[in-house]
């Protein structure tokens, strides 16, 4: 089980690794929330910062692209749907104006996913969980520890599921799955063993956690803001201000 995926945590000493998880979550939420209003200046600035952050965190872009390849296909689908129109007949029309807008939409979505991948690659699940408890605590109706546990488990499990999916896919290709042309049948053949393995792994993980006295009232990591967090928030505000420019 070599590199699980970019989306899993990779230990390191980069500036992003050293930021408080609350700061990283705030930046992710804030920049994602304003991204629908962002135009070219905002998207270019954000892209540059994200690319530099990936480089600083030691994450190869080729790995990220490999990990989110299905999402990239989804973006391509969104782009085509928003660009191609059928006005009154079967002949498709492609408008440059619509293509520009569709590109913006896809670019925004890609930025949000990239920021999420950066957060997960540079933050331990336990820290993400602790930050979430901190954010949810003031909300009266939400059981913050339960919610944070669920998110923590998803974060913990996602790279494992991706690894299992890749392993099943390799095993099926080794037995010539490509020769089956029916995509529905291929989907069934792929998803059934994947679900079975995911559920079995989930059972084993629950037993292992229970064996080590898992409870919601556990010691959370110590979180503390530093000068770096102030600088990161400042940089985040500067990027946010670029939404005012075209």
């Amino acid at each position: 089980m070599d590199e699980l995926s970019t989306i899993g945590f990779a230990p390191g000493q980069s500036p992003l690794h050293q930021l408080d998880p609350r700061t990283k979550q705030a930046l992710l939420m804030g920049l994602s929330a304003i991204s629908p209003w962002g135009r070219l200046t905002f998207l270019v600035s954000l892209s540059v910062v994200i690319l530099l952050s990936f480089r600083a965190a030691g994450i190869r872009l080729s790995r990220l692209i490999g990990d989110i390849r299905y999402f990239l296909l989804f973006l391509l689908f969104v782009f085509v749907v928003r660009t191609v129109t059928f006005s009154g007949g079967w002949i498709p029309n492609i408008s440059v104006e619509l293509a520009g807008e569709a590109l913006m939409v896809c670019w925004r979505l890609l930025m949000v996913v990239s920021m999420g991948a950066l957060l997960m690659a540079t933050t331990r699940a336990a820290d993400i969980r602790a930050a979430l408890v901190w954010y949810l605590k003031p909300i009266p109706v939400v059981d913050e520890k339960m919610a944070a546990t669920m998110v923590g488990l998803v974060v913990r499990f996602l790279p494992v599921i991706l690894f299992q999916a890749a392993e099943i896919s390799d095993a099926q290709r080794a037995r010539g799955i490509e020769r089956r042309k029916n995509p529905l049948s291929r989907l069934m053949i792929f998803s059934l063993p994947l679900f079975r393995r995911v559920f079995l792994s989930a059972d084993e993980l629950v037993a292992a956690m229970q064996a080590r006295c898992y409870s919601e009232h556990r010691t959370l990591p110590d979180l503390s803001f530093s000068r770096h967090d102030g600088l990161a928030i400042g940089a985040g505000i500067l990027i946010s201000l670029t939404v005012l420019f075209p």
Partner: protein
Amino acid sequence: MAVLAWRGPQDNTVSIIQTTHLYHRFADDTQGLCDVSLAFNEGEFTVIAGANGSGKTTLLRHLNGLLLPESGAVTVCGKSVEEDPMAARQQVGMVFQDADSQIVGETVYDDAAFGPENLALGRLQINRRVTRALEAVDLCGFENKRPHHLSGGEKRRLAIAGVLAMAPRVLLMDEPFSNLDYPATCLVLDQILNLHSNGHTIIITTHDLEKVVAHAQRLVVMADGRVVEDGLPTEVIDGVARYGIRPPCSVQLGKGIRPWMS
């Protein structure tokens, strides 16, 4: 079958875990355990042997409170596991057969700290326990490594460290040598023997007696969910083949039980 009772830490002979007429039936109606009555003494090194499906893992999961009996009882330090499974899990640590399924943390430190964090200990105490546990299994300096990048033997030792960090009195190990190469098996066996010499009660399940039986003080043989033999390894070993367990080579050659590792 005689069962020793828990007599408290002041007495000389202490059964730290006891099962009394334990039965377990799975959801598909298969009988997992049938009338298992055993007592494990403090500081004892026990090997539970049996073919696949003989009920070894099911028994271990009962000792740790992961499974609860259909009928019968399991007690740890005199307390019913059914009434307080969390207390049992603190006293009885379990190392799973598949180390990958036991690893919860993203780094070696995170994984070793998982148990103490669940016990809501302070951060200083957690750090102390993690350091001590990693030292005990020779994993110092691995704290920031990703567990999934470790070798099979290192993962197994991390799984042991994760349990040791909870400071249990008993260590249950389910097939601890499965899928390990020769050097990794030697290292894990060496760690287990060290833990035993430091006073831990060790209970190991295996279908391969070769590696460990020479060090055991007691050999329990299971078949079809029942305990069919229980005694000193030298007394029990000759009859194990009839339960689908391969006797060690030295026994087959008529040389008695010999240590596997020189």
